[in-house]
């Protein structure tokens, strides 16, 4: 029985990651500044979850071509509901109801009004749009309808921000509890770095930012933390073992020892996410893309941000030796 010795990585690498820390910090700071600038300059393309309004996905037996889109735009434009976005959905999977170009996505901007009036206004906008479209194409089918008033969308924004903040605080506390405070500061700074850059990416690309994006960001936080913890775990182990070595040498050693694991795990996760991105359909594409981006950033930050930060926070050398 011949058992192949499959290995993609040399037995031991000694890449000077820590030496590159200033370049990495520079790069990270640049990315963070660029992200914040993009956020304020371009904002985010918020989905209906956060803005409120009406979104409909429709299908007709006949193909929805440019002429039909124009026709619908004309009819809906006369309803006086403000800006209306129309977009044909082209679907490549055979067997799907939208195969070809039979479906379109319609987004109606949130309607104004005070209190309950505004809630009712969204409902009425939905009914007006449906009445107009059914008048135009009697065979039209509503594949999905979402109507959100300002109250709920406002709360979802709050809950989204809260959930990210709470997750970060809990991570801080957990790492503090399991390691030392120096580790938890480093880990959480790396997480904040990941979150800011991911949001910046959404601002630059103007991809829709919705509830699944918040889910993606929280998962990225979990994943990046996971990566960081593995590296930290090894750092703590080596710090106890090599008391004589310089801290930067120990950090570098630990990063290199966990490097093959870091890359392999990122790779399997990316493999799974790519299949989601390519095959999972439009609804999950934004989520998959955010995750793919976040995994890359999270892996980078564990190696180039979280570990070198320990040099700055001056981690204790005699942990749990007393």
């Amino acid at each position: 029985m011949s058992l192949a010795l499959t290995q993609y990585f040399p037995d031991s690498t000694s890449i000077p990651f820590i030496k590159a820390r200033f370049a990495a910090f520079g790069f990270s700071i640049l990315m963070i500044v660029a992200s914040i600038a993009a956020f304020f300059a371009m904002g985010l393309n918020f989905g209906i979850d956060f803005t409120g309004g009406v979104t409909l996905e429709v299908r007709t037996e006949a193909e929805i071509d440019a002429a039909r889109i124009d026709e619908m735009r004309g009819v809906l434009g006369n309803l006086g509901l403000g800006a209306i976005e129309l977009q044909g959905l082209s679907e490549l999977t055979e067997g799907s109801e939208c195969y070809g170009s039979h479906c379109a996505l319609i987004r109606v901007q949130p309607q104004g009004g005070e209190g309950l009036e505004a809630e009712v206004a969204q409902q009425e906008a939905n009914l007006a749009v449906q009445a107009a479209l059914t008048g135009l194409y009697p065979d039209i089918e509503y594949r999905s309808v979402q109507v959100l008033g300002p109250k709920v969308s406002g709360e979802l924004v709050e809950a989204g921000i809260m959930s990210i903040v709470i997750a970060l605080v809990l991570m801080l506390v957990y790492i503090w509890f399991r390691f030392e405070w120096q580790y938890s500061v480093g880990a959480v700074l790396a997480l904040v770095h990941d979150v800011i850059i991911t949001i910046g990416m959404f601002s630059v690309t103007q991809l829709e930012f919705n509830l699944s994006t918040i889910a993606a960001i929280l998962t990225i936080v979990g994943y990046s933390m996971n990566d960081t913890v593995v590296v930290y775990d090894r750092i703590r182990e080596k710090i106890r073992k090599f008391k004589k070595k310089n801290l930067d040498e120990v950090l570098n050693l630990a990063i290199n020892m966990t490097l093959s694991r870091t890359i392999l795990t990122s790779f399997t996760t990316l493999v799974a996410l790519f299949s989601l991105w390519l095959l999972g359909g439009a609804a999950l594409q934004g989520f998959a893309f955010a995750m793919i981006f976040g995994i890359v950033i999270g892996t980078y930050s564990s190696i180039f941000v979280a570990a070198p930060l320990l040099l700055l926070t001056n981690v204790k050398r005699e942990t749990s030796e007393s």
Partner: protein
Amino acid sequence: MLYFANWKIALIIAVSLLGIWFAAPNFSPLPGQTVNLGLDLQGGSHLVFEVDLPGVRAERLDGLSQEATVLFRQQPAIPTAANAVIGDEVVVRVARAEDMNEAYNRIQSLSRPIGDGSMGLAGVAGRTVAFNRDDSERTIRLSLTDAAMIDIRDRTIAQSIEVIRRRIDASGTTEPTIARQGDERILVQVPGESNPQRIIELVGTTARMTFHLVRSDVAVGANGQGRTPPGVMILQQDDLSEPYIAVERRAMVSGENLTYAGSSFQDGQAVVEFRFDTTGAAAFGRVTSQNVGRRFAVVLDDIVISSPRILGPILGGSGIITGNFTFESAYDLAVLLQAGALPAELTVVEQRSVGPGLGQDSINKGTFAVVTGFIAVMVFMLAAYSLFGVFSNLALMLNVMLILGALSGLQATLTLPGIAGIILTIGMAVDANVLIYERIREESRNGRTPANAIEKGYSEALSAILDANITTLIAAGVLYMLGAGPVRGFAVTLGIGIITSVFTAFVFSRLLVAMWVKGLKPKKLPI
């Protein structure tokens, strides 16, 4: 780490089989519960209604003001200079300063103790009304206490849910979910119904029905303008030939006295039949006997639906309502009347509906993406770790089974984001194996024997595996607590997947490796 007592082996096998047993009904004809699909996958409507609590509060304050009037009229009467609802208070001003004490004492009876203590909320025990007395202004201000507001809110929501349930059940909708959401909202989920307009109307109608005498002596303009004497109001009528009509403000009878409502046909017209209880029948009989020849109005939520003439005394306590009904609208009105009026107005604040076509598309795509991702990860693990890759792939297969089993057994809801969570878990689940195998490699290079290196690999990797999974579990937990709708489904599968993956990757794969070491006693590690 490599030694397993027999009972441990039995336990591991038992847990695995149990997971497979629960998962089996999903892909085989075995009986049992299958995964509960979310509305975004099976199609259906998700509606959230908000209860108009400010409206209820205003009504209560109005009631307090009227009760105060009654108390002040009792002999000896206390003359008042004002008695009105201003903002969140009822402001009463007595005419003479010497009446202040008596007035203050009298209206104390308006404040009642709250509940029977069963509300279970700290601080709820107390009284309903707070009094604020100002002798220099000769005023007493009455306001509802916080405890009273909580009590009113909880009762209003509980009653509303009860009414909604009766209405939806009677409409023939299958398996609806009706539940309180947060402080002042009610969630209604209706699987399989992708056009929720009828449900919205059924739930969103207050259905407060009253019968009033018509005042044909009051002139009403074409746009509803007109001079209304005290005690008369002008209402819109659901009839184009007479769009507005003047009626007496005081109701003869109200819908609360109905015991039965149903729909039927009369002379080819859809009508609603009703029957009063004894109190209602007596009142209705008395008024109709005294007012033969006059008209009365059937008013539903401030709209007159019909205004027939009283042809003779109606003493039996039953009758029919004619109006602009189709058979369906007559049926729905009967359902509403039979179920009773809502205690407060409800407004839709969130509506998400998905048609069956989109749901099926999502299932197909999601399944395809899961299978593809699963195979790709397995191929990769096999290429990276050969025999050990086989172990981790077996663990991964079991993991997917356990996730499916847990979802079915717990009857958790699988949503589209939930499918994303499964795919992500597949990618991340092998992490534990990668950690262990890399550690084994390292220990093996340091000159340890295979068994020894494996032993060390598992034990040294444990703390990193636990830390890493607990942090991801924290993220999933936060998402579950604060996430809304389908995103919660993601948190559920991610959370379940993390727990099962620790079992399959750390425990189950270790058993496989241990059996291999014990059976073949390898001299060299194929890793």
